[in-house]
């Protein structure tokens, strides 16, 4: 897979294809460590042997069935404290990609950056930045998209094929994915974060619905309603008449 079909300005123009690789994020970090590679460079593999999710967690993907890639960005226009804006833009871009193939009303963005089809996970993301003082120097956005795989070890996982009962050409999908990611990144670069934030909240999983949560600190179980996210990306939940905010990993959805 040495080329992809996309109409992008920069995302995916430089494609680094690896038949097999431990982790596309790790590889992207290595090739960008010493000298700069072009912004929008995509590191792509058919067989990721040690895919990484959030700290200490892995990412499960059968070879040749799914999309596992990382995109290199240099978002120098963002300060360290604005990094959740990048998260919003990437989640929105990937949401746009899925909405071309699956019914959008059943697709959700699960805080902070998973994509869900109803109650099942179809995509995960791992964003790794490099900071120089308060500036974001580099950002590697890794994503795993479940496409043609039909059996998962993780019980809450699903794939595009499991939903539509069709097989997909990964090459075509990767081109569309690059288009969508670039489109959303450009909005962010143009300062249209308010628009992106509105889009993100409109699609946020369980937004405005009565749901059950567990605060991980004390395993306290409670009922509440997600009302939004804070500037820095904390989840805001109204419970017992007041709004509490939660950092990642301090709360679980039931």
């Amino acid at each position, binding site marked *: 897979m040495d080329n992809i079909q996309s109409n992008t300005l920069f995302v995916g123009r430089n494609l680094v294809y690896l038949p097999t690789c431990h982790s596309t994020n790790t590889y992207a970090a290595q090739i960008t460590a010493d000298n700069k590679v072009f912004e929008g460079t995509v590191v792509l593999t058919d067989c990721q042997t040690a895919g990484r999710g959030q700290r200490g967690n892995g990412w499960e993907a059968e070879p040749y069935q799914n999309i596992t890639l990382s995109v290199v960005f240099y978002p120098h226009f963002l300060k360290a*404290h604005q*990094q959740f804006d*990048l998260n919003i833009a990437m989640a929105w871009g990937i949401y746009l990609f899925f909405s071309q193939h699956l019914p959008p009303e059943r697709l959700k963005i699960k805080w*902070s950056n998973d994509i869900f089809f109803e109650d099942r996970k179809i995509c995960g993301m791992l964003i790794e930045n*490099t*900071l*120089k003082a308060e500036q974001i120097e580099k950002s590697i956005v890794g994503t795993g998209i479940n496409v043609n795989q039909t059996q998962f070890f993780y019980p809450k996982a699903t794939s595009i094929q499991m939903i539509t009962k069709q097989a997909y050409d990964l090459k075509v999908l990767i081109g569309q994915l690059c288009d969508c990611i670039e489109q959303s990144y450009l909005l962010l670069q143009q300062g249209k974060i308010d628009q992106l934030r509105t889009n993100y909240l409109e699609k946020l999983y369980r937004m405005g619905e009565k749901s059950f949560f567990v605060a991980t600190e004390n395993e306290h179980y409670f009922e509440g309603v997600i009302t939004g996210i804070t500037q820095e*990306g904390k989840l805001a939940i109204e419970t017992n008449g007041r709004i509490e905010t939660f*950092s990642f990993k301090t709360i679980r959805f039931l």
Partner: protein
Amino acid sequence: MKAKEIQDLITFIAESGLDEVNIETESFKLSVKRNNLTFDSSKIQPSPVVNPVVVNTPQVIPPQVTTTVESKGATSTDESKLIAIKSPMIGTFYRASSPDTPAFANVGDDIKAGQVVCIIEAMKLFNEIESEISGKIVKVLVENASPVEYDQPLFLVDPS
């Protein structure tokens, strides 16, 4: 933290050339501020006064802690211009990229400007923090996997 360790730390800070240091862990909070910010090399015995010292800890603090730390004389301003690497953001501090890999930087390591020294995570976004200075790591000020505030010193570096 033992009283001796606190005393050593204050001595260390006094010699470091830093104007203000705030350290907070689960068990104590330490705040050291220098009154006299100017160092006049023409003075034979510069004596930067270190106070006030606020120590919130359940342990009994012996009186030595609040005593003024004397500078070692004119040479001390040269030998100990330690620089702190500070946190650019609120988050969780990690010394290694994953639980089973070695720490990016240990005490005694020589680091170069641009080298990654730690990771700070916030909302599932992982940030490699590059040092802006070259030098030797003299002290790691924060425990692995603990929360850090904006501008909190993480490492002390001897740039010489």
